[in-house]
């Protein structure tokens, strides 16, 4: 982390960048939050550890409009999102100084809580320089250690790899934390009967409080104005009895990001209700891979997205019925 702060200081002081986009410590030891640092002395609050799950690429949309360059810290998986935003002309590559930060898997505090860890005072073992094998919590009930992998975010178990897709320099080491099949959960649902599928999604989606956290955090959901907030589709009628938005929000949101979603997993990470929203996006990714060939959004900045492309021989929609 110190290396990162030193470099940030250097860049700020030399005037090469006008600000630094990173994380600062939150009010709890496990909730750092995204922050801009405009002066070298502010960097004392800078943190980067296993709890810095937030994908900062979306902040670059606004940062691109600001005067001067912004140093942004991107983890390997965040760089896919950044690439996708370049492709969609939403961020300006010239306005970004990308420091590819090392990542050894990010943590899900909810998982720790589920393991019975409460009253956390401090955490160790989640720093950049740590091995990230074991995580130790100092709690008011004493010290508790757990395997790092047991409290890792779902997305890190299906890590896309430790390589940064776009960067100006790299600081820190990364680790490929993949230990699960990316589409295993999707396949489990696919194998269910229609009744089971419906029951599953109905119970999950019934938890939704329409807080829009998923939409706000999603780097692909970067529309200036969401269709659900505009009058273009008669879909934003919050005062009316019309409930189209309420009912179809997640399916439509997933469709809108299909072929553009990099599977960064932020939607599921931020959902206060714990809805596994990534299962929608990942279903589209799986289908796209199967129907139109392997495609990873954000791997490059110039290929045609699956939904803006076609071949004469594409499968017919009836394949959905035919495969049973």
């Amino acid at each position, binding site marked *: 982390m110190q290396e990162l702060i030193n470099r940030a200081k250097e860049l700020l002081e030399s005037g090469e960048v006008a600000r630094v986009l990173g994380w600062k410590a939150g009010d709890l030891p496990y909730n750092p939050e995204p922050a801009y640092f405009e002066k070298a002395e502010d960097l004392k609050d800078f943190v980067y550890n296993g709890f810095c799950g937030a994908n900062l690429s979306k902040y670059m949309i606004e940062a691109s409009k600001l005067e001067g360059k912004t140093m942004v810290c991107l983890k390997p998986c965040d760089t896919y999102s950044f690439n996708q935003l370049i492709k969609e002309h939403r961020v300006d590559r010239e306005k970004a100084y990308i420091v590819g930060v090392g990542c050894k898997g990010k943590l899900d505090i909810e998982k720790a809580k589920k393991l019975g860890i409460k009253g956390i005072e401090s955490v160790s073992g989640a720093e950049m320089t740590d091995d990230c094998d074991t995580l130790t919590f100092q709690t008011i009930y004493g010290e508790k250690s757990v395997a790092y992998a047991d409290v890792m975010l779902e997305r890190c178990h299906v890590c896309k790899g430790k390589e940064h897709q776009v960067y100006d320099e790299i600081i820190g080491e990364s680790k490929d934390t993949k230990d699960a099949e990316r589409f295993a959960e999707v396949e489990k649902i696919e194998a*269910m009967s229609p009744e089971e*599928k419906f029951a599953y*999604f*109905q119970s999950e989606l019934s938890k*939704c409080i329409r807080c829009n956290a998923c939409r706000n955090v999603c780097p692909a959901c970067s529309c200036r104005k969401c269709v659900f907030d505009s009058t273009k589709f008669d879909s934003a009628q919050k005062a009316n009895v019309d409930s189209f938005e309420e*009912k179809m929000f997640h399916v*439509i949101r997933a*469709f809108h990001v299909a072929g553009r979603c990099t599977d960064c997993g932020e939607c599921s990470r931020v959902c206060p209700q714990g809805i596994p929203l990534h299962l929608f996006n990942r279903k589209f990714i799986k*289908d796209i891979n199967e129907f139109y060939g392997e495609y990873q959004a954000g791997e490059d900045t110039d290929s045609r997205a699956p939904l803006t492309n076609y071949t004469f021989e594409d499968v017919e929609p009836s394949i959905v*019925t035919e495969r049973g």
Partner: protein
Amino acid sequence: MSIETNEEFRPKIVAFCCNWCSYAGADLAGSSRLAYPADVKIIRVPCSCRVNPMFILRAFEKGADGVILCGCHPGDCHYSTGNFYARRRMTLLFSMLDYIGVENGRTRVEWVSAAEGVKFSQTMNEFVEKIHSLGKNVRLGDLRCKN
């Protein structure tokens, strides 16, 4: 479970037809007097690629029991490529609907040329029959709220 009324189930079916092929195919079915059930109501769109998945979800949410999209045969699109995009969009949408447990027979895409009045009529007859076998759409009415 409430007692079923004896009233015959009359499905609501929305058919989106592209102006150049399928709508003309439907016209030909009409001028050839090739009957299909009155449950099918056609909405004219310039091209199958004009059909936004939101329209389809909207129809279901408003009580449609089936939605069918008809366009020119791949390669014959009046706008060259429109139906290719429509094909991908619908394939993914239908797959998603299947994934969340909506009976996949409620959605269909069929390529019907201006010369295929017979095919249009046959397709609609088949589709209505299919919707009859599936019965009323209850799932897509509301994905979120439990009753």
